[in-house]
């Protein structure tokens, strides 16, 4: 059924509202009152919950509801990511507004019996505050301080049903753009909103659109960069899987604003679920006349094609990405000319990141002032972070720009795992840096992160604790960029390898002070001479750790120790005279290199010891095995 005009879209919206009505109830409906109403069970389908078996839970719920004859009154859905990955698999029940955490297939019978038949809460599945032990049926503290704009529909609508998206104001912004705004109006709104590229560099989106529009050409292209390669970042994936239509709608809007009739989504082949959802969404949008010829009966035509990446981090760089779409090796080229002037097949091309695009429809609908009221002076709106590492509440969080790291890590994130000490937060992935404790209270935006030697990046936020060795972390990222360097320019191809070699030397206890000096020099040379963003930012992890954790480098080089106890070549395990001779370690040692008999002090054969630490983990006597 092709929609011919705005009225048809509005009519369809009115009809579709009932699909999500149950979920829109904001007042808390008690579980007892909710009996008799049609209820929606949302089973989180985010990557984390999916991996821990949420599809099986959804299936079991349906079976069980069917068995007790409630399948008409209770409907099961699998939307996108709820964000609170730590407590997954999660389910939400509407309109009761109840969230259950860490649900397993075995809990399904209890939930159906207690919650749906008896009308009672299943207490042991409610979120429990780890400190106060208080149970939260709803309003889990994890969501306090969050503001969902880019993720507004993720976890809320069923991503494979265009009608739910339409019911949630979907394609309204497109109708507004097509029928009551000129392309220049649209560009002005985006410029005024202050929206900047969420892929990392933070270039103002409105300006990018304007430049592309101003480049004279018979054809222009819009590309959605969905090649999320930053290890530890999964925000784009969550948008693509949880709300694919918002990306399509934004691309069509961008197309009409810059004068493009064709768009491409460059998506990682490693994200099969995102690809599947996008294909479904594209087919549905075409079916409803929202994509293709004469969109909504207007004179504007636009179509979208998917292009698959093939596992190359550098393809997140826009010129490399364009070459990859053209079917070539994904090597970057020198800018200028910028893609806005000469991009895909030599035509002006606008490349926008997934999260950037997801912000567009609400900006058009609610206006630039609504959007730029959120955030800091130069960074407007919100940012999605993939919070991971040594933090209690791993998950996907969207916060206003200007939120401090402390709020994200200690309030939303619930602090450090096992009550250890916070050491640093790594942002910006392999292009970013490590932020030490003293900057925990600085507000996060593009400028402040760059000022302290890191960068926003795509939004990976990895929390490190006292057990992480900063030299080893720098080495990890250097290995990554060395692997991913495309080889086009010498500075990056050779430079990252040399940096990696020096770091390896240091972690093996063979580094010298001269190495440290040379490494620092080399970092600056690479920064100044590499061809593209990947190379130019490759030394950042080293430079920022050198800046804030130089004493750790010195410990490795001068004292030949690894303070965090990570670098194996610098470790030594020894059994002290506190040993009671229980033989636990003897049994556990994978190398069988601990000798000793019952009730006599054991000895580790240092020659053969792998330094795996298995003995120390096993030992029950404090101080009997020491590591130094």
């Amino acid at each position, binding site marked *: 059924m092709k929609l011919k005009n705005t009225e048809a879209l509005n009519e369809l919206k009115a009809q579709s509202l009932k699909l999500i009505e149950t979920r829109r109830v904001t007042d808390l409906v008690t579980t007892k009152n909710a009996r008799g109403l049609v209820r929606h069970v949302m089973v989180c389908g985010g990557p*984390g919950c999916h991996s821990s078996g949420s599809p099986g839970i959804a299936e079991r719920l349906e079976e069980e509801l069917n068995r007790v004859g409630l399948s008409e009154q209770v409907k099961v859905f699998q939307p996108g990511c709820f964000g609170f990955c730590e407590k997954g698999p999660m389910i939400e029940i509407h309109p009761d507004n109840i969230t259950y955490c860490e649900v397993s297939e075995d809990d399904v019978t209890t939930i159906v019996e207690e919650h749906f038949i008896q009308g009672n809460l299943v207490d042991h599945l409610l979120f429990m505050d780890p400190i106060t032990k208080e149970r939260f049926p709803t309003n889990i503290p994890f969501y306090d301080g969050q503001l969902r704009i880019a993720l507004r529909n993720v976890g809320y609508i069923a991503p494979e049903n265009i009608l739910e998206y339409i019911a949630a104001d979907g394609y309204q912004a497109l109708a507004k753009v097509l029928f009551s705004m000129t392309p220049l109006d649209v560009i002005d709104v985006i410029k005024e909103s202050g929206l900047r590229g969420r892929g990392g560099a933070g270039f103002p989106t409105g300006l990018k659109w304007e430049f592309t529009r101003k480049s004279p050409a018979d054809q222009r292209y819009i590309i959605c960069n969905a090649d999320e390669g930053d*290890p*530890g970042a999964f925000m784009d994936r969550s948008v693509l899987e949880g709300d694919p239509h918002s990306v399509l709608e934004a691309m069509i809007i961008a197309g009409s604003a810059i004068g493009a009739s064709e768009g491409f989504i460059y998506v990682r082949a*490693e994200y099969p679920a995102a690809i599947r959802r996008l294909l479904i969404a594209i087919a549905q949008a075409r079916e409803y006349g929202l994509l293709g010829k004469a969109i909504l009966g207007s004179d504007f035509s636009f179509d979208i094609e998917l292009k698959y990446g093939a596992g190359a981090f550098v393809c997140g760089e826009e010129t490399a990405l364009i070459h990859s779409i053209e079917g070539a090796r994904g090597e970057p080229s020198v800018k200028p000319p910028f893609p806005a002037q000469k991009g895909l097949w030599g035509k002006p091309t606008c490349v926008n990141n997934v999260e950037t695009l997801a912000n567009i429809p609400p900006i058009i609908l609610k206006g630039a002032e609504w959007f730029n009221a959120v955030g800091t002076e130069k960074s407007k709106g919100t940012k999605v972070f993939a919070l991971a590492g040594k933090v209690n509440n*791993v998950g996907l969080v969207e916060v206003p720009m200007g939120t401090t790291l402390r709020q994200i890590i200690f309030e939303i994130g619930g602090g450090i795992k096992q009550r250890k000490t916070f050491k640093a937060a790594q942002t910006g992935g392999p292009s970013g840096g490590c932020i030490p404790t003293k900057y925990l209270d600085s507000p996060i935006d593009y400028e402040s992160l760059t000022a302290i030697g890191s960068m926003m990046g795509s939004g990976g936020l990895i929390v*490190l604790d006292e057990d992480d060795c900063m030299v080893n972390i720098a080495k990890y990222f250097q290995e990554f960029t060395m692997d991913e360097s495309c080889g086009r320019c010498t500075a990056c191809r050779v430079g990252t390898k040399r940096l990696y070699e020096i770091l390896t030397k240091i972690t093996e206890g063979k580094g010298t002070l001269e190495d440290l000096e040379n490494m620092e020099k080399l970092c600056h040379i690479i920064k100044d001479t590499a061809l593209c963003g990947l190379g130019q930012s490759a030394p950042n992890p080293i430079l920022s750790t050198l800046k804030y954790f130089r004493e750790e480098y010195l410990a490795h080089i001068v004292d030949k120790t690894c303070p965090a106890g990570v670098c194996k070549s610098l470790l030594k395990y020894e059994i002290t005279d506190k040993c009671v001779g229980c033989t636990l370690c003897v049994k556990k040692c994978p190398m069988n290199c601990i000798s000793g008999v019952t009730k006599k002090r054991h000895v580790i054969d240092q020659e053969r010891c792998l330094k795996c630490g298995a003995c120390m983990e096993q030992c029950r006597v404090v101080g009997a095995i020491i590591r130094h």
Partner: protein
Amino acid sequence: MCDTASPNKFVQKLDDYIDSLTYKKENLIGVLHYAQEIYGYLPDNVQWHIAQKLDIPSATVYGVVTFYSFFTMIPRGEHVVNVCTGTACFVRGAEKLKGELENQLKIKAGETTTDNLFTLETLRCVGACGLAPVMIVDGKVHGRMNEAQHINEVLAKYRPEI
């Protein structure tokens, strides 16, 4: 061109796919994805065939195949075991997990067991950071793989019953 896998086996399927495309050369990466899906890997003779069919130098095809880590020229075992080496997994013990897998499978990352049952590889981030460290067997994610015994139990599911 002395590879044992015959490109003739699925060649019709591959040709039909290429014929169905509006743009040919521009879709080289898409064609390679399709070919790897049907052959499991991209041996010389398959690359050669694609070059002929798309009318481009085989060096270009080889250049693209070797550039992208998703493409492989070595056949894989029946089950592909991947260790996620994304940052979240890295700080929560991915190295240890990789070491344990190498130990249990008696191969190094990038190799295939002699019985052709398992290939061990690493990849960057599957987005299941909440479950770190994770291993992925044939696309299925197994989380919180800290214990040797758990790893063993997962692998056992993929071994044929004796």
